[in-house]
């Protein structure tokens, strides 16, 4: 039997007649390739998540124009919220008194307390919140108020048009109470 020449370590024994060349390492360090691979993965993970619409839905109740539906609520149980410009909310309970005595104002932080307070004082079947967005109010105000209805677990609420008398009161309160400079107030009707 021929002697097995086992040369230790290193490379293969090349075929006969090949000159013994300088042994060079054929091993490639793959660490940077892995880094690149993971970088690309991370990129695609993030873009896949973002392509999903981050959309939630807000469900409005059936909006009927029938007058009999509107009159069912007892006046004392009604809380009316009027939306003015600059994220202001005006509110009153029941019916608007002729001298505007029960016309109050707050902002979006305070509105939750107002609503919860009214809710505690009223019987559930009488309690209804009427939301009347003004012409200068932003869409985000309306959505926020509708959100409040869900957050405070209010079952009956309505989205209604603002009346002329209320509009006047809102304009007057905004003009007088707002700390904005007169130039700001004058620019609004010109818009």
């Amino acid at each position: 039997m021929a002697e097995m020449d086992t040369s230790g370590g290193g490379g293969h024994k090349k075929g006969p007649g090949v000159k013994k060349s300088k042994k060079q390492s054929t091993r490639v360090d793959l660490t940077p390739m892995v880094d690149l691979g993971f970088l690309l993965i991370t990129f695609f993970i993030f873009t896949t998540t973002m392509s999903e619409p981050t959309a939630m839905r807000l469900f409005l109740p059936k909006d009927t124009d029938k007058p009999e539906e509107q009159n069912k609520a007892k006046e004392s149980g009604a809380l009316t919220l009027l939306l003015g410009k600059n994220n202001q909310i005006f509110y009153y309970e029941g019916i608007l008194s002729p001298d505007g005595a029960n016309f109050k104002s707050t902002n979006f932080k305070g509105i939750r307390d107002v609503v919860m307070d009214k809710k505690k004082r009223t019987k559930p079947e009488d309690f209804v919140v009427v939301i009347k967005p003004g012409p200068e109010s932003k869409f985000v105000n309306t959505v926020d108020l509708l959100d409040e209805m869900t957050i405070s677990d209010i079952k009956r609420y309505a989205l209604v048009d603002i009346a002329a008398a209320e509009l006047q009161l809102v304009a007057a309160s905004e003009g007088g109470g707002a700390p904005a400079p007169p130039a700001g107030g004058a620019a609004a009707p010109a818009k």
Partner: protein
Amino acid sequence: MPKVKVPRKSTSVDMTAMCDVAFLLLSFFILTTSFKPDEALKVTTPKSVQTKAAELKNVVLVTMDKEGKVYFSISDDIGKEKQEAIDVKQKTIDIVDQQKKLGLTQAEKKAFLRSGSFVGVPFSQLKQYLGLGPDQIKGLKQSGIPVMDTLNNEMITWMQAAQSAFANKTMNLMVKGDSEAKYPSFKGVLDAFKKNELFKFQMITDQENVPIGTELYKKNQSRGVVQEPAAQ
């Protein structure tokens, strides 16, 4: 002391397997990424605590941008086959063409059928708009569908057409409004819905966590709903 020679072992790890795994994962994510339809409009929707995800199929979308301009679009994802979407869109544009006597050519109607069916011009400019190529539309600033004039609320016609086109299929009516849009445009859109007896619709909003201590928060807690941090 006896000299114990600790055999030196190689500390370099063979990265081949790691690389294979990395590229496998990469291929998976490349294949599962779907491009969302190119939105012609940038709308920042307000936040809300609603947790139900918006529908993606059979969607008729009314968009309001921050200047109050109103746009109408129909999704491509209708029914089980692509042909159904094309049929619905075809019916919609046919009805609109008939009602308003716009005299649209077949080519212009075909333009309406393309991805998204996004329209934001009054009827008087519709023919012209549909005649434009897709590149011209990209940069175009559309004037919006007029809704605020109660006598000329064009959205009523669009809704009517869409409703008839969707005759026996469920139509998911959605409103995507920008936070800064003023109420009158929203009112115009609501009026258009009311006139067509469309009382059920959804509004697309961003996700928001339920504020701690409120009624809804307590209700969720009692139901065992776990509140996850809202995605930014």
